[in-house]
């Protein structure tokens, strides 16, 4: 028995070796005259509402670019992996893109967590990496090869506080989610509040899966002198907060949500309670309501039409981030006249006055985002739809 066992153990070990080596044969690289661009997105799992529109957007536009002759006469080959929102998997796929697929550039990384896990890989390999994730840590401190397209949570705080300041409010309450988005934005808001003369008098939090926030809101309601309430968070938490807010009859106090809920589904979830809620969001959300002389109007309307006619699904700002990232990269390759990662990196940094769905991007060696506060529009929910808030009101 034991002699046989020995053989068995060896066989088992052998199978494992065979499994790994057959795996290497499967992914044989095919060298062709194409430019390989990699992407790791959270297409499944809890962050799929980010990864799914990003994936669709990349595919639609890569096909379009290739149909129009590609870049420098070379076709683009897009390699996309799904990390399921898992940072560890994202890291492995990042290594795979570089070592195995030999991509020359990377767009993607749906969440801050996956992006932060992948950054060391691309920095070490010196491959340009344009992330679609929100947090400011990605580009602050500036890393040579890392860029991003979405507005940061810090900018969202500034936009909200700017509006609060214009309305001459100074004392506010904050209720935030404890998820990654909520926690990160909360920290940024606390940091920038003094610059706008805003004092956060009372602060409450809720868990990402909580189903009732009445207790926290009651405490805020009973704090005297609160002039406005800010709710950094995303997912369904903010919708519940909004409903509870109305139920407690607090609607007379101005209520601010974040760009994290800037989608139609927030209005659907919160229903009538959403009336009067303000939030900073990208122009994409109100494309058709923008004045005709708005420089972003054409881009956002074009993207929205393309996305909605191809996928038959409503457009989201997240897909827009992917559009911006891919467009910035392709434009940089065009200018560099090459797909050499280092030259492309330099040209990405040279991006000037690029009009995207997220705003007008002008990057520099100290700014790898290139957006200013004008990229955000202050919106208000009226009659179940978004309307632009006139500056100064």
């Amino acid at each position, binding site marked *: *028995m*034991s*002699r*046989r*066992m*020995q*053989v*068995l*153990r*060896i*066989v*088992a*070990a*052998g*199978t*494992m*070796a065979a*499994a*790994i*080596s057959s*795996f*290497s044969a*499967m*992914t044989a690289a095919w060298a062709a005259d194409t430019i390989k661009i990699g992407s790791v997105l959270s297409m*499944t799992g809890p962050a799929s509402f980010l990864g799914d529109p990003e994936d669709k957007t990349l595919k639609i536009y890569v096909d379009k670019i290739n149909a129009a002759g590609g870049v420098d006469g070379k076709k683009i080959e897009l390699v996309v*992996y*799904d990390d399921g929102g*898992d*940072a*560890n*998997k994202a*890291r*492995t*796929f990042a*290594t*795979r893109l*570089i*070592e*195995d697929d030999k991509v020359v550039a990377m767009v993607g990384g749906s969440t*801050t*967590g996956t992006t*932060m*896990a992948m950054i*060391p890989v691309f920095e*070490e390999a010196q491959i340009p990496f344009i992330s679609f994730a929100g*947090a400011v*840590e990605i580009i602050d401190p500036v890393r040579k090869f890392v860029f991003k397209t979405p507005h940061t949570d810090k900018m969202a705080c500034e936009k909200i506080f700017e509006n609060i300041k214009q309305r001459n409010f100074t004392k506010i309450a904050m209720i935030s989610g*404890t*998820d*990654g988005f909520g*926690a*990160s934005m909360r*920290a940024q808001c606390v940091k920038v509040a003094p610059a706008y003369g805003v004092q956060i008098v009372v602060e409450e939090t809720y868990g990402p899966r909580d189903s009732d926030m009445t207790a926290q809101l009651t405490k805020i309601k009973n704090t005297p002198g609160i002039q406005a309430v800010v709710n950094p968070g995303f997912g369904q938490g903010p919708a519940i907060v909004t409903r509870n807010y109305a139920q407690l009859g607090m609607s007379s106090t101005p209520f601010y949500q974040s760009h994290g809920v800037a989608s139609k589904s927030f209005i659907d979830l919160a229903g009538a309670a959403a009336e009067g809620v303000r939030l900073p969001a990208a122009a994409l959300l109100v494309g058709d309501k923008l004045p005709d002389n708005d420089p972003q109007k054409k881009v956002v309307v074009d993207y929205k039409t393309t996305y909605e006619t191809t996928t038959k699904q409503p457009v989201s700002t997240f897909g827009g981030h992917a559009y911006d990232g891919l467009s910035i990269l392709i434009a940089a390759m065009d200018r560099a006249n090459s797909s050499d990662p280092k030259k492309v990196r330099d040209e990405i940094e040279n991006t000037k006055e690029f009009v995207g769905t997220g705003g007008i991007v002008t990057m520099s060696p100290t700014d790898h985002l290139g957006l200013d506060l004008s990229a955000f529009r202050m919106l208000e929910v009226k009659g179940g739809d978004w309307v632009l808030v006139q500056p100064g009101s």
Partner: protein
Amino acid sequence: MMTRLNRRSVILLALATMMALLPLVFPSSYYFRVASLVWVSALAAIGLNILMGKAGQVSLGHAGFFGIGAYAVAIGPAHLGVNALAAVGIGALLSGLLAFLVGRPILRLKGHYLAIATLGLGVLIAMVITTESRWTGGPDGMPVAKLVLFGWRVSGSDTWYWITAGLLLIGTWIALNLDDTPTGRAFRALHDSETAARVAGVAVNRFKLQAFVIAAVYASVAGSALAMMNGFVNPDQAGFLHSVELVTMVVLGGLGSIVGSIVGAAVLVVLPQVLTVFQEYEHFMLGLLIIVSMIFMRDGMVPMLARLITRGRR
């Protein structure tokens, strides 16, 4: 006795040979990365197997200890100025201590109750890691400083391949040796029948606790290794899904089979990488494969293969 000794050395030798030969067929350092992930996962799975397969106690919160190890090497050097290697030790010590303290009351529970209690422990650890953002960076995780050994910065997938391979060899060696010690025999007695073990004079509670502590230390060391290899940690590593993944590795490979845990880890790490070619159907295929293998290989892959071959010989 001789043959048992032989069996042990043959396994270790086979494992070491494979580890040494695999790099010869690796075309790029991406494969080193995947193999290192297998070694790390296998290390945690072997520890859990000592608890589940040998001593017969379940833990659904094992990733919690993995998380403690991972965050020890992140927080230690960053916030407390502790040397990274020392942080690995501190992580293992903390995990062992926590397992000892919590294990005393909860290991008196049996079956489903024990499963729930360990699940709760795992969830609690993950929650603390997620909320204490001043220390842990919150839900988005935090970076881990590169390991520096005698002035040499450890980096690169191939270097980590050898380090994790070494760790796994040591872990395998200890686990295999355990089989022949009084402790190992006590574990087996516990596994077969707690009542019988108690009657035979086995200090049931003490041995359960011992297995729990050993398993926690294995997971913690594996967690530290992964965190340093990745240069980044986030709370997912301590989360419930990761606990389930570890249990799946143990059960898929074969409860009680040390080689089984390595095979189980290899399958669960390598398969998703291979299956990405199926795009949208990736998760479907993975689920299907696990279901099919559990139906046809109820005892796990390695014990089942072992039985098939023995039967073939007869």
